[in-house]
């Protein structure tokens, strides 16, 4: 069942367009991450969803009902802020009770709900402490509890972990996942941190300069980005991009990247590429394998090997382009070595060189004759 | 606290002046007895007082430590002085520096000088009611010696300052302390043109059964102002003062004209006597005949408002007549002003009038001055019969006719500004003058009386409550000031009241 549906949402400030033509739908019980660099329009989108900002055009529907003109407090959305926005002059209990008091619940019901939520959030012991003396993760719990206690149909988290220290961040991430599971809550999670997005969300919506660039499940978004932007934004190190020229071939297409050519199969959609058109070829670091230590002249040269515990990042020079490669296995090569590379079949994406838009997602195989 | 007396010989000579004139000064038939020939203006004698001052100053000037005489003056009074400073300088070589303070602050500033003792001012032009305070605070220099030496002829001679001004305006506790510069008793001013309008006269006669004339009694007056009150035409009967600080004077006139004094022999307040309450009730009753502004107007607003021409009468100072009779200042009423004695009360067949000397300025020599004698001499010169006759009519000042010659033999400028008729009328009323609270603690007594009057007028208290409160407050002030000393002071002030009033209280027998 579609919980939240956004249709052609648009927000302009004078000549500046903050959000353009956004379409998005979120299912019940789903966790969706809204991901993008700062200034991409995700905060504006968030504000429009919760009702703090009115859209210039478009529609927002929750459970099929249009939310245009419905005041923020009446949309059934809970919002948790990056800086927690806990009411510093109140105790934890007062914070948690606030939303319920507004709803004119009886004192007894309030107390009951607050106890319940405090229990869920692990705040039972500090209910009567003033919030002014609390630390980050505690405040985060209060903020979350304050929202959850009102039983929102959608929970929006705005960069909820970015103010926390690294260790706390991990702990809270798990905590969030636990709570989401326990409550079956629909969650929209706004972040610029891809790891959070990837680890928490079922689906990811990537935004760039006011546009929704890619919306899909985490696997799809990660491995088959719809634009070079998405590939470049997600992943650490990000997707490798190689400029190339299309050459027609019998089996499909080949892309000439200067120092080598790569076979690319035609898409199932039958997209055919004009011979000679410029493209960008994208491949994830973990979709590249090092084949052997070769002495071939056209091989890639290893510039740098970084051991990162479980992973190893290898920086290569292929022709004039730098590539990064991630391997979970031990790399026996040395800096300065030359080697052959293999792009995993089906894991290579082609983008229009000018627009950066994906041309096709195709299962590819070919060894690069290096 | 009582200042030590001057050497005996001076004391005696002063007494001898008094002896010579006492009978005449306290007599009831004052105008007649004191009739002075107009020829006094043409004799050389008129210049003697000024000349003595100039001579004295010229003699002292070369050895004086200070060549500038500083005078503390009330703001707005410079007009009487500035044109004469150059003349004085030519005559004596002494410069004069005028220091203005707002006229409401003058008393305060002078008393501050009594505390600070800077000697920054050599002369102070102060209000008459402040003289006791100035003296008790050690600010007003004892002038007996100078008076003896330079003969300003304050209370004797053809040019004297008429009694009682010469008494409460120059002396405190029997000694000379000031040179009176501004006789300031009230008269009743009415619109001559309204009174002379035949239609009005007919209507008035029809209504009250008598002629439309200047009033003798307060009842007459109340009829007049009732008659001329026509709010629908924007016309009112009177512009009597009902603003704070001024209301007490209106009360004093009505009260004293009932043959009353402020205090009895032992300084018990009499304001809560039936007469005092009645006087206040009369003030309250006449509210209907007053425009609303009367309740907030101070004197200058009052002058200006009367000048607009929508009010029949008012009680005011001589300068009121002078300014509002000047076409350059008040087009509407100039030439149409009739001055009359303040109304009185007929008691036992005797008509008693009481014209309050509200304010009035005098020269006081600062005890702390470095050049007291020169300062005194300037004051003597400026208040001398001839010089003051020229000074008083100047525009932009407060001084009004004070010396006998001003009334009886006015100079051209004086005659032009005040008119012969007014000067005659004013002279005739001097016998009815009553003093303000010219005793120590004047502000406290005035304020207690005035505030209670105002509160009654505003309806916050009944007249009786107000007068009882005022009496209580005044009694308390007296107690605190030291009753014996105050009684002594009051006894000498009481002697300056009109004969008819004094007689009813047997003031002559007070000791």
């Amino acid at each position, binding site marked *: 069942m579609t919980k939240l549906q956004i249709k052609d949402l648009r927000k302009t400030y004078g000549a500046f367009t903050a959000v353009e033509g956004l379409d998005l739908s979120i299912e019940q019980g789903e966790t969706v991450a809204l991901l993008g660099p700062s200034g991409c329009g995700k905060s504006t989108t968030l504000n429009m969803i919760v009702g703090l900002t009115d859209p210039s055009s478009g529609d927002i529907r929750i459970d099929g009902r249009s939310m245009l003109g419905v005041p923020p407090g009446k949309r059934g959305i809970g919002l948790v802020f990056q800086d927690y926005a806990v009411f510093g002059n109140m105790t934890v209990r007062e914070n948690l009770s606030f939303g319920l008091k507004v709803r004119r619940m009886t004192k007894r019901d309030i107390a009951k709900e607050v106890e319940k939520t405090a229990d869920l959030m692990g705040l039972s012991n500090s209910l009567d402490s003033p919030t002014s003396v609390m630390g980050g993760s505690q405040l985060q719990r209060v903020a979350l509890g304050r929202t959850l206690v009102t039983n929102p149909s959608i929970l929006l988290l705005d960069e909820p972990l970015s103010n926390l220290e690294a260790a706390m961040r991990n702990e809270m991430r798990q905590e969030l996942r636990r709570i989401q599971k326990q409550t079956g809550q629909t969650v929209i999670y706004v972040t610029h941190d891809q790891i959070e997005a990837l680890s928490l969300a079922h689906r990811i919506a990537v935004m760039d300069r006011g546009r929704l660039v890619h919306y899909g499940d985490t696997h799809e978004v990660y491995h088959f980005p719809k634009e070079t932007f998405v590939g470049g934004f997600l992943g650490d190190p990000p997707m490798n991009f190689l400029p190339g020229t299309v050459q027609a071939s019998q089996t499909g297409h080949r892309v000439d990247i200067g120092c080598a050519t790569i076979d690319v199969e035609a898409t199932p959609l039958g997209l055919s590429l004009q011979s000679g058109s410029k493209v960008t070829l994208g491949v994830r670091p973990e979709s590249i394998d090092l084949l052997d230590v070769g002495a071939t002249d056209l091989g890639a040269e290893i510039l740098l090997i970084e051991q990162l515990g479980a992973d190893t990042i290898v920086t290569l020079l292929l022709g004039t382009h730098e590539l990064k490669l991630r391997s979970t296995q031990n790399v026996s090569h040395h800096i300065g070595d030359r080697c052959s590379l293999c792009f995993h079949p089906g894991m290579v994406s082609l983008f229009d060189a000018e627009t950066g838009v994906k041309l096709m997602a195709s299962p590819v195989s070919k060894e690069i004759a290096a | 606290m009582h200042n030590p007396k001057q050497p005996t010989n001076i004391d005696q000579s002063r007494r001898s002046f008094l002896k010579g004139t006492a009978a005449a000064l306290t007599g009831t038939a004052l105008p007649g007895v004191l009739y002075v020939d107009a020829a006094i203006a043409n004799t050389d004698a008129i210049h003697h007082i000024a000349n003595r001052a100039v001579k004295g100053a010229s003699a002292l000037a070369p050895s004086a430590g200070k060549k500038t005489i*500083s005078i503390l003056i009330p*703001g*707005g*009074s*410079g*007009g009487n002085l*500035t044109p004469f400073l150059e003349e004085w300088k030519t005559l004596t070589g002494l410069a004069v*520096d*005028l*220091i*203005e*303070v*707002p*006229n409401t*602050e003058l008393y305060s500033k002078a008393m*501050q*000088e009594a*505390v*600070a*003792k*800077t000697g*920054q*001012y050599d002369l102070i032009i102060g209000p008459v009611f402040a003289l006791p305070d100035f003296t008790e605070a050690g600010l007003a220099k004892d002038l007996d010696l100078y008076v003896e030496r330079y003969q300003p002829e304050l209370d004797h001679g053809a040019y004297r300052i008429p009694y009682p001004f010469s008494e409460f305006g120059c002396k405190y506790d029997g000694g000379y302390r000031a040179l009176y510069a501004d006789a300031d008793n009230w008269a009743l001013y009415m619109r001559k043109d309204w009174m002379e309008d035949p239609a009005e006269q007919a209507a008035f006669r029809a209504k009250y059964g008598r002629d439309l004339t200047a009033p003798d009694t307060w009842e007459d007056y109340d009829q007049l102002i009732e008659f001329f009150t026509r709010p629908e035409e924007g016309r009112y009967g009177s512009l009597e003062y009902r603003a704070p600080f001024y209301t007490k004077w209106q009360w004093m006139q009505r009260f004293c004209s009932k043959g009353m004094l402020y205090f009895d022999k032992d300084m018990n307040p009499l304001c809560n006597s039936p007469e005092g309450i009645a006087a206040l009730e009369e003030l309250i009753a006449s509210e209907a005949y007053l425009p609303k502004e009367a309740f907030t107007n*101070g*004197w*200058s*607003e009052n*002058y*200006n408002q009367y000048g*607009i021409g929508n009010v029949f009468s008012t009680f005011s100072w001589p*300068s009121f007549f002078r*300014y509002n009779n000047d076409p350059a*200042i008040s087009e509407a009423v100039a030439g149409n002003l009739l001055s009359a004695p303040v109304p009185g009360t007929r008691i036992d067949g005797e008509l008693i009038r009481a014209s309050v000397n509200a304010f009035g300025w005098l020269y006081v020599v600062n005890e702390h001055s470095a050049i007291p004698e020169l300062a005194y001499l300037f004051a003597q010169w400026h208040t001398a019969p001839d010089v003051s006759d020229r000074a008083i009519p100047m*525009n*932009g*000042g*407060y001084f009004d006719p004070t010396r006998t010659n001003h009334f009886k033999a006015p100079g051209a400028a004086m005659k032009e500004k005040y008119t012969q008729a007014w000067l005659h009328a004013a002279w005739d009323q001097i016998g009815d003058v009553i003093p303000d609270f010219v005793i120590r603690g004047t502000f406290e007594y005035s304020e207690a009386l005035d505030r209670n009057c105002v509160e009654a007028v505003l309806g916050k208290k009944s007249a009786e409550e107000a007068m009882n409160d005022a009496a209580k407050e005044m009694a308390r002030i007296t107690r605190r000031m030291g009753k014996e000393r105050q009684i002594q002071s009051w006894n000498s002030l009481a002697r300056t009241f009109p004969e008819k009033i004094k007689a009813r209280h047997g003031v002559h027998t007070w000791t």
Partner: protein
Amino acid sequence: MFVSKKMTWWAWVALALALFFAVFPIFWIVSTAFKPSTEWVAIPPVWISGQPTLDNFSAVFISQAGAAETAATAVSETGWRAIFGSIIISICATALSISVGLAASLAISRYRFGGNSTPLMILSGRMFPPIAIAIPFLVMFNSIGLIDTYLGLILCYAAFTLPFSVWMIKSFIDDLPQEIEEAAMLDGLSRVQAHIRFTIPLIRGGLISTSLFIFILNWSEFLFGLVLTAKDVVTIPVQLSKYFAATAGQLYGVQAALAVVAVLPLVVIGYFIQTHLVRGLTFGAVKR
């Protein structure tokens, strides 16, 4: 924010009323300054003179000796001496108050001199009714010859504005991290040098706004100016009270003219120190 940014009709009305209320009296002063004497208290009141005149200003600035008697020429002295006096006294008293206050704030803020009681003690100096303290001042000033001197008023004004100087400057120093001076001292500067080279320049904005605020206080003072002077020293507020003439009564127009001249610089100053003023006025409770 909990208030919508949109201007509703009632917001326009409220704004218009507030503006009228705020500006009308100022308009009236300015307008009166240009009215001929007949219009000062005319019935009905004149809003803008049909025959505007500069007489009131010339009464303030140009000696009227010998001029034909009119309401405006009844003024016996020009306003120059008062303007000069006010400028001298306000500037010197402000400078004194600020420099003494700056030193004291350093001692309090940086060295915790005297603990917490010192600032509160200093502040309580501002609570004494000046009317009552004026009398001991009179007695005291008389015995040391300070009555009617510029120095006397300067000392008095400086002392009475010192509480604000200390509290305002202190709030600016408090907000300045101590590390700045510490770093300077590690580089070899002495404590005094560190204050002079770093602390003071860094709170320059605060010092300027505090000075201007103190200047306004000094410039406006009336009572001490009235009581502690005799003939040599006059300030503008005292001069204003002198515009009274026997014929015309209160010289509203002349008063208004001097008031306009006296107030204009303050309004301009105020415009420039608005934001700093808040910091100072709230003793640092608002940090912006």
